[in-house]
């Protein structure tokens, strides 16, 4: 199978993720959509790695996974404490950072 198809899939996943980030209000869902975008990027990196025949893309994909794991820890902690204080996980409710 041609590796280009993987790129199409990556673009599709990224678009779904981006749309989710922009349209959904629930912080957990937004968070998952971000993960989706990250994994779309990983998929694209690995596909490019295969297409060009070197391992750089794969290595960066590993890095991305590590960073994503760390980010999940921090992000979930923020979301949980936000939910505890406001009893809501809507991102639009947390809009105090403005002038």
């Amino acid at each position, binding site marked *: 199978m041609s590796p280009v198809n993987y790129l199409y899939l990556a673009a599709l996943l990224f678009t779904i993720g981006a749309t989710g*980030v*922009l349209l959904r*209000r629930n912080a957990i869902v*937004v968070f998952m959509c971000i993960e989706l975008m990250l994994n779309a990027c990983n998929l694209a990196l690995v596909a490019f790695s295969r297409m060009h025949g070197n391992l750089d893309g794969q290595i960066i994909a590993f890095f991305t996974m590590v960073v994503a794991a760390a980010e999940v820890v921090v992000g979930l902690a923020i979301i949980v404490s936000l939910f505890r204080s406001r009893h809501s996980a809507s991102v*639009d409710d*947390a*809009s105090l950072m*403005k*002038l």
Partner: protein
Amino acid sequence: MENLIALLIAAPLLGAAVLLCGGRRFDRVGHLLGTALAATSFVIGAALFANMLTKSVDDRALHQKLFNWIDVGGFQADIAFQLDQLSITFVLLISGVGTLIHVYSIGYMEHDERRRRFFGYLNLFLAAMLLLVLADNYLLLYFGWEGVGLASYLLIGFWQHKPSAATAAKKAFLVNRVGDIGLSIAIMLMFTTFGTFAFGPVLGSVGETSEGMLTAIGLMLLLAACGKSAQVPLQSWLGDAMEGPTPVSALIHAATMVTAGVYLIVRSGAIFNAAPDAQLVVVIVGAVTLMFGAIVGCAKDDIKKALAGSTMSQIGYMILAAGLGPIGYVFAIMHLVTHGFFKAGLFLGAGSVMHGMNDEVDMRKYGGLRKYMPVTFVTFGLGYLAIIGFPGLSGFFSKDMIIEAAFAKGGTEGWILGSITLLGAAITAFYMTRVMLMTFFGEKRWQPDAEGHLPHPHESPKSMTIPMIILAFGSVFAGGFFSIGDRFLNWLEPVTGWDHGHAPISATTVTAATVVALLLGVSIAWVMYGRKARPVPVVAPRGSVLTRAARRDLLQDDFNHVVLVRGGEHLTRSLVYVDHTLVDGVVNGTAASVGGLSGRLRKLQNGYARSYAVSMFGGTAVLIAATLLMRAV
């Protein structure tokens, strides 16, 4: 011998340093130390003078270079001294009269608890004044010039607890500053024109310079002289300067510092000789001040202010003579020296009278003092005869020379100047006779002081009378000594040059006219103030318009107030208006527009994370689109 020149200045400078920094432990000996160091300076000066007399005319000038002061590229300034016939004349006058006045101050300031400080300031003045006359370049002269200004300020305001004294000191300082700007501009012009400001090279290369530049330098030097020597239009400070202790008025504001302007003009003679326009202005300033001071002197009831008017007028004579060019330089200096004697003597006499009269200065409250203060009366009387030019006394010779020189200027100018100087001589005789009659003759008009004590006039202590006697001696004999065999002329001619001029009338005629003017002035004063039938009123009568104007110093302060103070206020007000509208308008307008813009921009910060995400996606999309577009092109 050269090495002694620096010592001349160092002695009083040491005194000033010790007395001003030494603290209370010098309270008991401060006045003696100060006087001794002033006397040291005089002795060194006398030794240098004696040495100079032994040399031939051509190599009398001594030079001493102490060290290189500033050396930056083409800018060279040295601490270097020049002692020639002109300088030594001043050195002897300054240190001689200075020493006498130090001695006088021992008695006069005896009960002042800040006497040590007073002597410190006096020594500081002596050092600065000697530096002024000994400097061999204009920059160092400027240093001394500022130094005497400082000492004058400190001494006028010596009794700083009196608001009038503090104000007078500030006034003197500010008015002097205007003149000092003139001197600094003159020095800058010299540097750009000649590349140096040492006397020798500057005055030597006058011939290669354009007359316009020389006129500019000359006028700036004249401005400086006007400030320091209280000439119109910068004369207003001298009358108020009489707030200082009387020895200060005698030393600084009569005998020495106020004559610095005359020194400056005579020293820069080569510049003025080559700039006739500047010279003409000098003459006009001198003539105007001569009359101005004389008229003010006629109306003042305060004995020191009357003498201050007289000082102004006499310095007007000197400036006029200096403006005549080589015809007058020598006589300007000669009058300066004799004036130093008799005016210092007169001021010391006035101080002695005040000392005996509970510090009363109003001559209308004096009268009949000759029996109570015989020594003061005789010395003051001799000074009086000298200043009015009584035949045979100092002032007669020196003033007569200036009047002759004024006529010798030639043409209409000569006649006008000659007449003014003659008229001035008559007025001098009038106001000095008035001072004399009101103080020492007539009825006693003594008034009780603030505590209700009637004054008990008494002769002053020896420390005060002896300097007065010595100065009276000088007032009587100096003029004759200088004039017999043209001694003074031969002495100074190698430095200042001399020219006969073309006198339209003979010297004898001028002398006769001077004596007639003198007798006229004295008799008018006697008719008005001397007769028993018409005693002097204790409260000043209203007087004519001119009298009232003269009592207010011919409206000089009103003029300054209306033109300079009000004018300055209007100027600052309009500048403030421009500042508020234009400058602030631009600044505030910028700030307001930036503020308005940011007010709109901040709406973007709405706090919704998703809206920021849209911006990010949008921005990224634009960047990618732009990149692709650039690739495609």
